[in-house]
């Protein structure tokens, strides 16, 4: 079945993805996503009833450690990468009125 992606869906996915697409990008995204989903729908040919979803190929166990700080203070180097910095903190646009 051919997938059709609506304007509302693209708008909604854009909100989830935190992306602001131009009108041209939106049209392209509708087509790209529909094509990919048509292709992904191929998986429905397989009966997976009773098959457990496999997130990891090996049985993984949670790795615990003591909650002890082992790294040093690297504030200066880390803040060097900040687009906005003031008094040892990250500066962002105003978030509360």
């Amino acid at each position, binding site marked *: 079945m051919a997938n059709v992606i609506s304007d509302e*869906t*693209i708008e*909604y*996915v*854009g909100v*989830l*993805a*935190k*992306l*602001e*697409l131009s009108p041209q*990008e939106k049209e392209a*995204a509708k087509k*790209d*996503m529909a*094509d*990919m*989903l048509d*292709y*992904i*729908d*191929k*998986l*429905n*040919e*397989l009966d*997976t009833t009773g*098959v*457990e*979803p*496999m*997130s*990891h*190929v*090996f049985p*993984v166990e*949670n*790795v615990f*450690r003591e909650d002890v700080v082992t790294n040093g203070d*690297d504030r200066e*180097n*880390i803040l*060097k*990468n*900040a*687009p*906005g910095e003031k008094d040892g903190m*990250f500066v*962002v*646009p*105003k*978030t509360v009125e």
Partner: protein
Amino acid sequence: MNLVDLTAVELAEKIKGGEVSAREALEAVFRRVEEKEELLHCYVTLDREGAFKRAEEIQKKIQAGEAAGALAGVPVAIKDNLCTAGMRTTCSSRILDNFVPAFSARAVEDLEAAGAVILGKTNMDEFAMGSTTETSAFGVTRNPHDPERVPGGSSGGSAAAVAAGECFFAIGSDTGGSIRQPASFCGVVGLKPTYGTVSRYGLIAYGSSLDQIGPLTRDVRDCAAVLELIATHDKKDSTSIKREDTDFTSALRTDVEGLRIGVPRDYFGEGLDKEVKAAVLKAADTLRDAGADVEEFDLSLVEYAIPTYYTIAAAEASSNLERFDGVKYGYRAEDCQGLHSMYKKTRSQGFGAEVKRRIMLGSFVLSSGYYDAYYLKALRVKALIKKAFDHAFRKYDVILGPTAPTTAPRLGESLADPMKMYLGDIYTISANLAGLPAMSVPCGKDAGGLPVGLQLIGDCFQEKKLLRAAYAYEQAVGGFGTGKEA
């Protein structure tokens, strides 16, 4: 003889023996960089000053008789998605254009401990999303065998740099074939280890359940030697596995007597280039002549690997790339009205088209109402694919087939049709889904002189069997690039 024609292991021996200095090796490699880099563009960042400083330090250690490491003084290139303390790390993305990490990836630390000298950071597809290195925000890398063709991707800069002699070996990462496919296109050796073998600490994540770091080298001995150094357990990666069997160079034996090699019929069907097919089957014959038991079999489910992969990889990417928001590092858009506007503008301006495409798809398949139908469905099919491999490895030690369906395409051909580009990953991505080790070795050239890659896939933790088969093949053909393979 030109120094840059030596393998990494050969160079290390000469440096250790005092025959060549670390500085001389570095000078030779930078001369090659000056000759070739303008055309090929393998690197995003070169650190000439840092490299010479480091070479001096290493040389002093050697002269003082101190242990300087297994690859002391050997120049290495690092893919630009591995963090290097104090050296710009961009993922070939505008959004990380000015990012300078405060720490190094574990694999980088391991190489530095072994005395390797970092030359610079290699070009790649943006965030490793692509198969040609053309989605880089910093321009394309060209294939050293034909500059009108792509080097493959996403570790295209690393593979091209090794092939061109612009380094002695390189490090790449492989999420769906990103080490093996460029190795195939550039005529070098590339290995993706078993998931969990090399720590992912400091690797900028794309698809965390699929990503593995591995070596790109001139020959099989180098591949084993480098893997031995970076296969270390790391508490900072919760999926890192403590392995006891990491003496990979011990597997370099020329005999393959009794090695059971399975050739999946489903890897030789529609879409496979005739010349690639002939070269790969000839390599299978070479291994048979050397004593291996080679037989055909049906692997099954091959055509479901790509849709499974793109669902899972896009889902994980959409989550992993949420961190790029313009707050703590990287690019920030100007003139933002409030926090959300800053996030959106920064990401929309900072990411390229392919990255946005995968983030959108990933956000969709994880969204409420579609999660079960797409994401969980893909994880169920992944379980079936793993089972098919488990079944095959009860009978075979190694699965042999092509790395890619074709040799390197022309620049610009692939991006015009993303679906076609995705199909090029058909033989490589299953190994990532099933966590298996897999490698690509050169097995001759097509009529146009472009390298063909032979892929060897092993069961989990069986890198040694791959290396043994690869080494035996390399010895049987008298070495790679000698023209005797095909």
